[in-house]
């Protein structure tokens, strides 16, 4: 509850300000502020997408326009009544949600680039405006709609209504982004691949978030149509979409409160100045924008005061959560086949990297994949963890055919994968990284920060062995390469996987750490809960911990046997010596 105290206090204070402000302001300013409040709410939605999850969007204006037109069209056709108002609000939300789903489907798929998503976000408002232009008398074409009946509210009432709306939305978004679930959004910004391999459906999360922010923008648009009594196609346009981005950048992206204050300040100023020097004002805004982007990427408001930043950003958790032991999963009775590869093939154009690999591995086995550079070891790992990678053959994980399923579904079958270069979430703390890895097991709260973090025994062992348990509150990005390797390993083990793929897990570790991690891994395998596939160049390490060794050479499996078999094999010696077998 303590975490909620500050947003709540802020909210109450802001509501009081909104309640008394009209008494001190002239009518013109109150009128302008009604509009600014609504623009600020849309800017807030842009900041959630851009500042928090790293998706630069120009498209939020389309949702604002959708909401505004939903209200204006309903009131124009059917006149005003409270029922119509509710219906039009529902229509506004529904329309925005449908457009957002469509945009999300287009923008976010496995392997989509951030640039492409931004491109689509550009197309959406362009299309929306053209549709409004071509709507003839129905949408009022280029002159928009005006003169419809709206709720009979005074300017002050509108001020109170829109002000309260802005405060409530801001506090809700603030609490959400600071919550444990909100950390997932930052994780998406830091590293989408790692998120997918922690079992999170990246497209689904992004689409859900887009729909949520679209609804905020749409409700703001609905209120705008009600308060201003006029709507025009420009409201949903691409130019308004870019203005939103400019306001967010000036206010300070990723700070939530910065864009809100920035938007209000800029919109009010431009309302006063655009009368006297319209073009000069826009020119100054453009110059300020470039200066901020080049020199102060954090934005004006955060730069203006570090105090302000400390107050409004999520504070680094001074007390990281207490680690507790998660209840252990009972070990399976039999040593079932965990990984089953049948004739797996992968080629890039005419270059065949894997030429039909078949083998099985059971729970309780630690299989090392060895072979010279270019043998196809890492490619094989990819084919095991992403259904879209291979060109032919079948992969079964714990009896489930992975078909062409994306990585997060493979994780659901019990897979965990550690990458060759450590992938962690640089701007999150160690504890937050681990909590995101536990998302599949403990649903993170949408509004609070839990004060305990339950982890399986193996993860606690790894943390203790590498000293990471003392550094839970520090940012992951500040750690050494070796520490990141250990953290990623801990994150993978926090998934409680039954099949683990490790690509050079000990590179960058000290000898001491390597021995400890080796012991933890063999201990885990010995419990019969785990099947471990290891790619490793350190042959001493392989010899110490493997129960079986598979040798790859030029994309084919040349030997599958015990450590002794491989060490004694002339074939293996000739491969490593560079002669053709």
């Amino acid at each position, binding site marked *: 509850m303590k975490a909620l105290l500050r947003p709540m206090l802020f909210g109450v204070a802001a509501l009081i300000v909104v309640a008394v402000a009209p008494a001190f302001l002239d009518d013109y300013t109150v009128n302008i502020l009604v509009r600014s409040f609504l623009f600020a709410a849309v800017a807030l939605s842009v900041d959630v997408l851009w500042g928090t999850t790293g998706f630069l969007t120009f498209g939020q204006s389309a949702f604002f326009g959708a909401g505004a037109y939903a209200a204006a069209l309903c009131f124009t056709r059917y006149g005003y009544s409270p029922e119509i108002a509710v219906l039009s609000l529902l229509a506004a939300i529904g329309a925005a949600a449908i457009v957002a789903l469509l945009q999300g489907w*287009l923008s976010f798929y496995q392997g989509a680039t951030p*640039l492409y998503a931004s491109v689509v976000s550009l*197309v959406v408002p362009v299309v929306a405006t*053209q549709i409004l232009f071509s709507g003839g008398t129905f949408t009022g074409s280029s002159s928009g709609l005006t003169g419809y009946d709206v709720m009979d509210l005074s300017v002050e009432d509108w001020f109170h209504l829109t002000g309260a709306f802005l405060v409530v939305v801001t506090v809700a978004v603030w609490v959400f982004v600071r919550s444990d679930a909100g950390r997932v959004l930052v994780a998406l910004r830091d590293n989408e691949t790692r998120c997918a391999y922690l079992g999170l459906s990246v497209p689904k999360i992004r689409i859900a978030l887009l729909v949520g922010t679209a609804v905020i923008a749409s409700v703001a648009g609905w209120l705008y149509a009600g308060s201003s009594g006029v709507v025009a196609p420009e409201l949903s346009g*691409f130019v308004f979409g870019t203005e939103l981005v400019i306001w967010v950048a000036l206010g300070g992206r990723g700070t939530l409160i910065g864009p809100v204050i920035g938007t209000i300040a800029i919109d009010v100023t431009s309302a006063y100045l655009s009368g006297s020097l319209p073009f000069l004002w826009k020119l100054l805004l*453009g110059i300020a*924008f470039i200066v901020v*982007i*080049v020199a102060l990427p954090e934005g004006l408001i955060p730069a203006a005061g570090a105090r302000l930043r400390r107050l409004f950003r999520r504070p680094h958790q001074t007390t990281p959560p207490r680690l507790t032991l998660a209840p252990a999963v009972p070990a399976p009775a039999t040593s079932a086949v965990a990984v089953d590869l049948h004739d797996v093939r992968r080629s890039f154009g005419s270059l065949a990297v894997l030429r039909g690999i078949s083998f099985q591995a059971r729970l309780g086995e630690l299989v090392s994949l060895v072979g010279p550079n270019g043998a196809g070891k890492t490619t094989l790992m990819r084919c095991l963890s992403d259904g879209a990678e291979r060109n032919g053959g079948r992969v079964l994980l714990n009896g489930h055919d992975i078909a062409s399923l994306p990585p997060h579904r493979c994780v659901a079958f019990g897979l965990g994968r550690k990458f060759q270069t450590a992938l962690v979430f640089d701007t999150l703390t160690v504890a937050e990284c681990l909590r995101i890895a536990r998302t599949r097991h403990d649903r993170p709260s949408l509004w609070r920060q839990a004060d305990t973090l339950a982890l399986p025994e193996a993860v606690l062992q790894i943390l203790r062995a590498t000293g990471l348990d003392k550094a839970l509150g520090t940012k992951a990005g500040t750690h050494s390469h070796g520490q990141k390797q250990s953290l990623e390993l801990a994150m993978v083990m926090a998934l409680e996987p039954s099949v683990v793929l490790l690509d050079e897990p000990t590179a960058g570790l000290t000898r001491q750490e390597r021995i400890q991690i080796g012991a933890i891994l063999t201990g885990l395998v010995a419990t019969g809960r785990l099947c471990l596939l290891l790619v490793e160049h350190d042959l001493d390490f392989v010899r110490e911990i493997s129960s079986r060794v598979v040798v790859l050479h030029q994309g084919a499996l040349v030997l599958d046997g015990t450590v002794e078999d491989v060490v004694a094999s002339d074939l293996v010696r000739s491969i490593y010596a560079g002669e053709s077998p």
Partner: protein
Amino acid sequence: MTTSAILFTVAAGLLIVFGVMKIVNFAHGGFMTLGAYGGLVASQLGLSPWLGLPVAFMAGAVCGALVERFVVRPLYIRPLDAILATWGLGIIIGQLLTLGFGREVQFVAPPLTGTIDFLGEAYSAYRLFLILAAMAIGGVFTWLLTGTRLGLATNAVILNEDLARGLGINAGLVRFATFSLGSGLAGLAGALITPLSSVDPNMGVPWLLNAFMLVMVSGSSLGTLLAASVLLGGAQVVISSLFSPVLGGLTIVVLAALLLRIRPLGLAR
């Protein structure tokens, strides 16, 4: 055909910048408008309309050079921010032109008038000239990229910048040259289309969007850009005349977005 030719001219400059720098230059529309005004000024000063073209090219190139040095260079590592900064530049150019020339729509007389009969149909001579000009630009660019040392260095930077730098190629200079050239081309394109349309401070924006989508679709090859321009530009004309100009205006962006959803790497691969 004319539409495709103009699209190609506008997009070629954007493409070369995108290919080399992986940066989308949203000020491209601004440079284009600048070129158009360059042509306008030249014609108002009573110079030959043909002289307007090099003037427009120079205006674009000089502005591009300044922008590269002071705005884009610090942003190479933040490509999305570069998009934003160049968009801001586009706004600034638009406002400066508004301050200087007013927001009225102005017209320029084409340097070529009359029609030419070709295969039994009468075509406007200037439109035919445009097509030739687009082909010439395509040809010059292909020659620059494949036949000169600068082209070789540029290709090296496109493929692997770190390696190119390691081999002693001045990547900064290549980028500088590319950006100036691309901006100059934008100015040239602006001057070329003015006789067909009108000149106003925000004329660049719709062209920018279409050209941008074309560049996205065609990856980084001039050949596919040509194909995409002809294909999508043709589709735009067909849909405009069959249904409505509004739908036609949307053709390129919508088709390109769908194409990219199906083939994320564009038509090139």
